[in-house]
C-alpha cells in the first residue's frame, strides 16, 4: 500500500495502542502532526516540549504503556532532553518522536538542526535515526517493544522530514520484531533462589528493601502476598513507595538521606537485606561498606548491570521480580519472621514517629497538611511532586495507598516535573490527581496550566509557598553557615491572581486550623484548583538529617 512516512508513523502508533501524543509542532515534525489529525490518536499541545516529555512520563506511569511525545528538530528536540533523562533514571517507558532536517541537509548545520540521537545517547535505552523510509514501521514497533519490556526506558526516533513526506510502498504485514542484541531475562536461577530462601530463614533480622522495580514489573500483588505470608518488615526507596500502603503494619517508611529515621534504623539493624528492584542509589544507601560486610545483601534486579554496580551483594539474583516472587514464595511458605524482630521494629516506629504539629503559628505545617489531605483524598487518587522539600514531605507524610499513586522524579530529581507529570497522569487515569509543588518548582513549568485549561485536564495543584527554594535554603543553613544565596524567590507573582487569569479556581491557607476547610473547598468538584499553602521558610525537610527545627527567621534574612 502506498503511504507517506508520516502515515506509516501514525499507523504504527495506532497498532501499538497509542491513544494520546503530547507534543509541540514545528516544520520538521509537522507531517506527523498533520497525519495525527486524521487518526483517533489525540494530540495534546503543550506549552513547552519539556512539558510534553514529562506529560508522556506521567501518562506512562499510570497506564504502564509507553508514553509518547513529539517535538520538532533542533530546539524542540533539545527541550525534550530533560524529560527523556528523567524517564531514563526512573525506568519509565517512553517513545519520543523528533523531526529532523531533511536527509540531504543532515550534517550541514542546517536551520534547526541538532544531532539529537547523539545528544540523548547517554540517557536513552535506545535511539534511531531513520535513514530509509521503509524502515519506519519496523523501527516504531521496535521502539515500543524496547521501551516497554525488560527494564523500561525512553527510546527516541529521529525522522528526517523528507522521509516523513515521501511516499513508500508499505508492506501489508509488519516484520516480526527480532533484535538479537536484546535479551529479556528468563526465569531466575533456581539455585540462587534457594540460597535466598535459606539465607532469609537463617537470619534473625531480615528486612525487605522495596524498590521501584516491583511496581514496574507489576508484581505488587505477589509482593504484598509475600510480605503478608512471611511477616518480613519492609522499608522502601522513594521509587518503592506504594508497594505496600504507607499505613501498612509492616511498612516502616522510606530509607535514605531524606528518609524516615525509623526506616534507616531498621535497615541498618537488619542482618539480611532483600533488595527487590532497586539500584541501591547513593541517596538510598550511603554506607555501602555496611551492606557489603557481614554477608547481608540479597540483590534481586532485572538488570544484571545494577547488581554489583553500587554495592557488591552476598547473593545476586537476576530476574524479573514478578517471576522471582513466584519462584521464591513456595520456598518460604513455612516461614515467619521472628516476633522479637518485629517487636524491635515496632518499638523503633513508636519512638521515631511524631504527630505533626497542628496548632496555629501563622504558617501551615506541610506534614500536617498532607496528613489531612491523605484522610480526605480518594483512595485511588494520584499525587505528583516536584523536587525539593515538597517531594520529601509527600514521600514521608502522605498516605500512598496504591502502587502507582506517587508520581515523582526519584532518580534525576527534576524540578518542573510534577505539574506536567500530573497533567499526563490525569489524562491517563481520569482520577483525582494532586500536584504538590513548592513555589520555586511551580514556576519552572507553570505555563503548562494553559495546557490543563485548553484540553480540560483537571489537576488539583497545591503550592507550598515559602518564598524560598526551601531545600537549598536548608542546605545553606546546614552546610554554608546560613549564607543564604540565590534562594529567595521574592518577585514571584500572586499565584491566586495568576490562577484567576487562567480561569482556575483557587484558595489560600495560612493556618493549620484552616487546612481542613481549604482542602474540602478544593475537592468540592472535579475541576482544576490551585491551593496556595503558606509555609514557614524554616520548616525542616525531614527527620533524618535534621531532627530539630531550624532557627526562627532573622529579620534581615530574605
Amino acid at each position, binding site marked *: 500500500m502506498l503511504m507517506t512516512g508520516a502515515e506509516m508513523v501514525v499507523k504504527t502508533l495506532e497498532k501499538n495502542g497509542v491513544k494520546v501524543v503530547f507534543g509541540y509542532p514545528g516544520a520538521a515534525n509537522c507531517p506527523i502532526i498533520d497525519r495525527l489529525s486524521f487518526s483517533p490518536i489525540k494530540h495534546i499541545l503543550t506549552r513547552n516540549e519539556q512539558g510534553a516529555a514529562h506529560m508522556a512520563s506521567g501518562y506512562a506511569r499510570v497506564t504502564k504503556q509507553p508514553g509518547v511525545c513529539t517535538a520538532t528538530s533542533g530546539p524542540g528536540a533539545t527541550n525534550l532532553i530533560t524529560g527523556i533523562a528523567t524517564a531514563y533514571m526512573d525506568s519509565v517507558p517512553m517513545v519520543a518522536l523528533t523531526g529532523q532536517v531533511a536527509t540531504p541537509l543532515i550534517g550541514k548545520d542546517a536551520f534547526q538542526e541538532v544531532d539529537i540521537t547523539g545528544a540523548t545517547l547517554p540517557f536513552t535505552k535506545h535511539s534511531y535515526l531513520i535513514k530509509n523510509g521503509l524502515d519506519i514501521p519496523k523501527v516504531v514497533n521496535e521502539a515500543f517493544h*524496547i521501551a516497554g519490556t525488560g527494564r523500561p526506558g525512553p527510546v527516541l526516533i529521529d525522522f528526517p522530514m523528507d522521509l516523513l513526506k515521501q511516499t513508500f510502498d508499505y508492506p501489508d504485514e509488519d516484520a516480526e520484531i527480532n533484535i*538479537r*542484541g536484546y535479551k529479556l531475562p528468563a526465569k531466575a536461577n533456581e539455585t540462587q533462589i534457594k540460597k535466598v530462601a535459606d539465607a532469609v530463614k537463617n537470619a534473625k533480622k531480615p528486612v525487605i528493601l522495596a524498590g521501584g522495580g516491583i511496581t514496574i514489573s507489576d508484581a505488587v500483588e505477589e509482593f504484598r502476598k509475600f510480605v503478608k505470608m512471611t511477616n518480613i518488615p519492609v522499608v522502601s526507596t522513594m521509587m518503592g513507595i506504594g508497594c505496600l500502603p504507607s499505613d501498612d503494619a509492616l511498612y516502616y517508611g522510606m530509607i535514605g538521606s531524606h528518609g524516615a529515621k525509623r526506616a534507616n534504623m531498621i535497615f541498618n539493624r537488619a542482618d539480611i537485606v532483600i533488595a527487590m528492584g532497586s539500584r541501591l542509589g547513593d541517596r538510598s544507601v550511603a554506607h555501602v561498606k555496611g551492606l557489603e560486610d557481614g554477608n547481608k545483601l540479597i540483590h534481586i534486579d532485572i*538488570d*544484571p*548491570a545494577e*547488581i554489583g*554496580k553500587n554495592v*557488591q551483594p552476598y547473593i545476586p539474583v537476576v530476574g524479573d521480580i514478578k517471576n522471582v516472587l513466584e519462584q521464591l514464595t513456595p520456598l518460604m511458605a513455612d516461614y515467619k519472621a521472628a516476633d522479637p524482630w518485629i517487636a524491635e521494629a515496632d518499638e523503633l516506629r513508636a519512638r521515631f514517629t511524631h504527630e505533626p504539629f497542628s496548632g496555629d503559628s501563622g504558617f501551615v505545617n506541610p506534614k500536617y497538611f498532607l496528613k489531612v489531605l491523605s484522610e480526605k483524598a480518594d483512595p485511588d487518587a494520584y499525587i505528583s511532586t516536584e523536587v525539593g522539600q515538597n517531594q520529601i514531605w509527600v514521600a514521608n507524610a502522605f498516605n500512598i495507598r496504591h502502587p502507582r499513586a506517587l508520581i515523582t522524579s526519584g532518580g534525576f530529581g527534576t524540578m518542573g516535573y510534577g505539574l506536567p507529570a500530573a497533567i499526563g497522569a490525569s489524562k491517563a487515569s481520569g482520577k483525582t490527581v494532586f500536584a504538590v509543588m513548592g513555589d520555586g518548582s511551580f514556576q519552572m513549568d507553570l505555563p503548562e496550566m494553559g495546557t490543563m485549561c485548553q484540553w480540560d485536564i483537571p489537576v488539583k495543584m497545591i503550592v507550598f509557598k515559602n518564598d524560598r527554594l526551601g531545600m537549598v535554603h536548608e542546605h545553606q543553613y546546614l552546610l554554608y553557615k546560613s549564607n543564604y544565596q540565590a534562594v529567595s524567590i521574592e518577585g514571584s507573582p500572586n499565584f491566586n491572581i495568576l490562577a484567576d487569569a487562567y480561569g482556575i479556581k483557587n484558595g489560600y491557607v495560612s493556618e493549620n486550623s484552616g487546612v481542613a476547610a481549604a482542602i474540602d473547598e478544593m475537592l468540592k468538584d472535579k475541576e482544576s484548583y490551585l491551593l496556595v499553602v503558606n509555609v514557614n521558610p524554616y520548616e525542616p525537610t525531614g527527620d533524618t538529617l535534621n531532627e530539630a527545627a531550624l532557627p526562627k527567621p532573622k529579620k534581615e534574612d530574605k
Partner: protein
Amino acid sequence: MERYTLSVLVENHAGVLSRVVGLFSRRGFNIHSLSVGTTQDENISRITIEVNGDALMVEQVSKQLSKIMEVIKIKTLREGEMVKRGLVLVKVKVSPKTRSEVIEITNVFRAKIVDISPGTLTIELTGHDKKIGAFIDIIEQYGIEEIAQTGMTALERGSNTLKLDK
C-alpha cells in the same frame, strides 16, 4: 590494575562504535586499545577492546556493554587462551652506518621493511603488545621519526568461537 581483553560482536551499523566508546567515557572506564573490523558475516563487526582495571570493573563494563541493543555477544578473553596481535609501523632514522644494524634487528623480530628512503626505514611488525613494546624499546636508540599502531585484536585459541545465540 590488570589488562583485560574483551571481544565484542556488534551489529555492523553506523553509530555503533560511538555507543560503545561513549559508554566507556561516560562510566569512567579506560580503554587501553581498540580495534574494529567486520567478520565473515558482513552484518556483524568484531570490536576488540583492551581495558585496564580489576575483575569487578571488567564485569561491570561487560554488563553495561550488553545493554547496548546492537551488542550481540561479549566475551572476556583470558591471557594464554587467546592469540592477540597488533600491528605497528615504525619509521626509523638511519644513516649508511646504522642501516644494516636496523635491518638486523628487524630480522631478529621477524619484522618487515616495507619502505626505504635515503634517511629512513619503515618497518612493519605484527605481534603481541609485549613484542611490539620490546621492538620499539630497542629501535628507539636510532631515532624514531613516526609510529602508527593499531589496537590489539584477538581470537580464542583452539576450536572455541564466540557463537551467536540461536
